[in-house]
């Protein structure tokens, strides 16, 4: 029966090409716009580290003075040097890393490449295992390199391609700010979206090119990138270790969910202890969010993208209403034919199925068109200036969703017209002929 209905559907669609084309185009436009924006939303609201993001936490404490105190205000998002170091050395979590962003001047040994500046991350040894960073060659550094302010560096694949033509460069030296660093590792392809561990650099920033031990970066006074929030007499970047400023990101990994509360208690105890010592003025005010909670708290998905999604869904709705109207017109116009089929013994159910299959065919055709439009739409998005633009690609899930959305929405759109067409009394139609 299905084959016969399909045949009927194709036949009927061919009979009124303009109306069919109008429906297909409307569906395609609606689906294309919706899938473009939904894909962008899907990419941007994704989990940066699937599998381990639930074990990674951002501990926050409140070291501010009583100036501008407001009860219930969340603690700052970064830590001071003193607190960062204290929490790092307390090592109460399974892993912990203290870090900040920066920029370093690279002086290639090849005369063909001019010196250039590139983004860097100054961090501590646990960074690599904690964030499951893949290595192409070599490895990260260890805690003794942190303590010894070692001149070691881990570089990105991109930088390795640029300076060493992709060869294993571990053991070689990299010159930065007139100083030689030993390359200990080269990263594999790595880009976390969003750039959750430091959103100051940009929510969808690319991974840094150079990773240097935090202690080394301070020793060499490498320049900082990011946000610094000071109070009291703070603000001198030359002596950032001693100033009352928050400017470092601190992340911990707690594998056992049962230990999360214990860590939070530890943070409260720490804050209390600092208050007793006179360093903190405020009552303990702590927070411990995991990666996804943190991204939600920071409202990382751009509001423009949400707005675009609403807009596209509204557009799809208009396209569907349009299709319902046209389909209704089309089906009712065939009252005569349908009347004959009913008079010859086709049940309402049969007619209903036949019309729904016709709607399905329109939906599939619209889906194809929509897919092409979504590809075009995403290509346009990628040409936009936003930092997230390059991420907008259609994956398998979204591809299937496109077809499903097209099919389901058109079938829904077809329900009312098909039902109306089924209501035709066979005898009456035949008589009016």
């Amino acid at each position, binding site marked *: 029966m299905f084959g016969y209905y399909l045949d009927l559907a194709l036949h009927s669609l061919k009979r009124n090409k303009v109306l069919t084309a109008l429906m297909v185009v409307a569906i395609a436009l609606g689906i294309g716009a919706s899938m473009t924006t939904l894909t962008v939303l899907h990419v941007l609201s994704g989990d940066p580290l699937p599998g381990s993001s639930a074990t990674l936490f951002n501990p926050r404490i409140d070291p501010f003075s009583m100036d501008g105190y407001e009860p219930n205000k969340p603690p700052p998002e970064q830590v001071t040097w003193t607190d960062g170091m204290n929490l790092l050395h307390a090592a109460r979590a399974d892993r912990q890393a203290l870090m900040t962003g920066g920029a370093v001047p690279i002086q290639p040994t090849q005369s063909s490449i001019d010196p250039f500046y590139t983004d860097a991350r100054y961090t501590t040894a646990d960074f690599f295992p904690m964030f499951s960073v893949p290595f192409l060659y070599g490895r990260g550094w260890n805690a003794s390199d942190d303590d010894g302010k070692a001149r070691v560096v881990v570089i990105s694949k991109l930088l390795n391609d640029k300076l060493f033509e992709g060869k294993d460069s571990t053991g070689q030296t990299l010159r930065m700010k007139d100083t030689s660093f030993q390359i200990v590792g080269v990263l594999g392809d790595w880009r976390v979206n969003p750039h959750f561990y430091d959103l100051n650099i940009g929510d969808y920033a690319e991974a840094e090119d150079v990773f240097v031990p935090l202690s080394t970066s301070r020793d060499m006074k490498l320049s900082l990138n990011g946000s610094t929030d000071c109070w009291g*007499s703070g603000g001198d970047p030359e002596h950032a270790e001693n100033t009352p400023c928050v400017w470092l990101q601190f992340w911990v990994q707690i594998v056992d969910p049962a230990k999360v509360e214990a860590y939070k208690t530890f943070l409260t105890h720490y804050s209390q202890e600092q208050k007793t010592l006179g360093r903190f003025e405020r009552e303990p005010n702590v927070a411990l969010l995991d990666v996804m909670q943190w991204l939600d708290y920071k409202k990382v998905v751009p509001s423009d993208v949400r707005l675009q999604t609403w807009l596209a869904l509204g557009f799809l709705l208009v396209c569907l209403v349009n299709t319902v109207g046209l389909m209704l017109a089309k089906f009712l116009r065939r009252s005569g034919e349908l009347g004959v089929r009913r008079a010859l013994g086709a049940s309402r159910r049969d007619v209903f199925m036949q019309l729904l299959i016709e709607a399905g065919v329109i939906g599939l055709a619209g889906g194809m068109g929509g897919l092409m439009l979504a590809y075009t739409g995403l290509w346009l998005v990628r040409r936009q200036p936003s930092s997230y633009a390059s991420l907008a690609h259609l994956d398998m899930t979204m591809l299937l969703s496109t077809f499903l959305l097209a099919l389901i929405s058109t079938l829904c759109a077809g329900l009312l017209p098909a039902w109306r067409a089924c209501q035709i009394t066979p005898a009456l139609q035949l008589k009016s002929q």
Partner: protein
Amino acid sequence: MEILPILSTLRRHKITAALLILEIALTCAIVCNAVFLITQRIDRMNMPSGVAEKELVRIRFASIGANDDKYARDQEDLQLLRQIPGVTQVASVNQVPFGNSSNNSGVKIDPDQKKSTINATNYYGVNLAETLGTQLVAGRNLRPDEYVDMKTIMAALQTKNDKAMPKTVVITQAMANRLWPGQNPLGKPIYLDQTPLYVVGVVKELVRPSIWDDSIAKYSMILPARVAEGQYLIRTSPQDRDRVLKTALEKLKAADPHRVILSKQVWEDVRTRFFEDDRAMTGLLAGVCVALLVVTALGIVGLGSFWVAQRRRQIGVRRALGATRGNILRYFQTENFLLATIGIVLGMALAYGINLFLMVHYELPRLPGSYFPIGAIALWAVGQIAVLGPAMRAAAVPPVVATRAA
């Protein structure tokens, strides 16, 4: 008019008519709000900066090695830049309007205040106001002898040495009006910490960098701090900009090859880059509006054709009974006008609802009433244009159809 017969005909096509009305209503609601969003973005993109935008060039660089005396280096650079023919002003600054990184402070008007009154941005740099071309509306610009090196200020902060701190400030009119509404701001003190800074001048406009909240975009102050952060602003005549930029880069590079140029821009690029997301969004919204109107028009054409085909016999009878082509044409036009009007009324209510949602979730202002007539006219026009084809075909139906079987 033929409104009554039209209404009775429409009653027989309740569902199709309702769908058309719904489509018009949705389109009207979305288009009204989208156009409103577009005007909001355009207003934002046209935000005045208060600087001589056509005359400015910006260069940012970083030194590769350790820099011993960056202040001395800075003075030599400025001297070099000043010698370039066509250059009228130069300044070494910490930030620029519409730039992406900014230095901001909480501002108090009483040193014992627990909470800052406002947050304003700090512009540093000798000759900054003159180079930017800000317009002075009261008082005077900062004098060169009032400037203090940034490193001296930092040291003074650590040792709480009030004497070494700057004592004057120039603020924007918007900031003055916010701090002391209706009063003369000249001579009044503001506090970033415990040291008073006395307002000596007020500029008409100077927008801040990295604007995260449009309502405080105009809160800027110029402080007498001398900086050497590798960011130079050069003012020249509009036609000389490209040449001056090129010469300036060559001179800077020759003076010290041990540095990297991070960016070099004529001012338009700074503004363009700052608003690129807004521009992209405006384009997208406009695209959606056009697409919506086109889809709605196509829907009207489709349904209109269907109704005409269905009513061929009825039309034939009317023609045979003496109706002119004009009567038939007007019948369909009136029918569309009626449907569009109902759709527009519903659409306005819906537009208002969507606007309420946007006000809550996206902090948008209320939709001004002027959008309602504009939306109505747009949809009436689309409807009339779309129905014209089918209506003409209806008018072309010959009276003889009445005598034929369907």
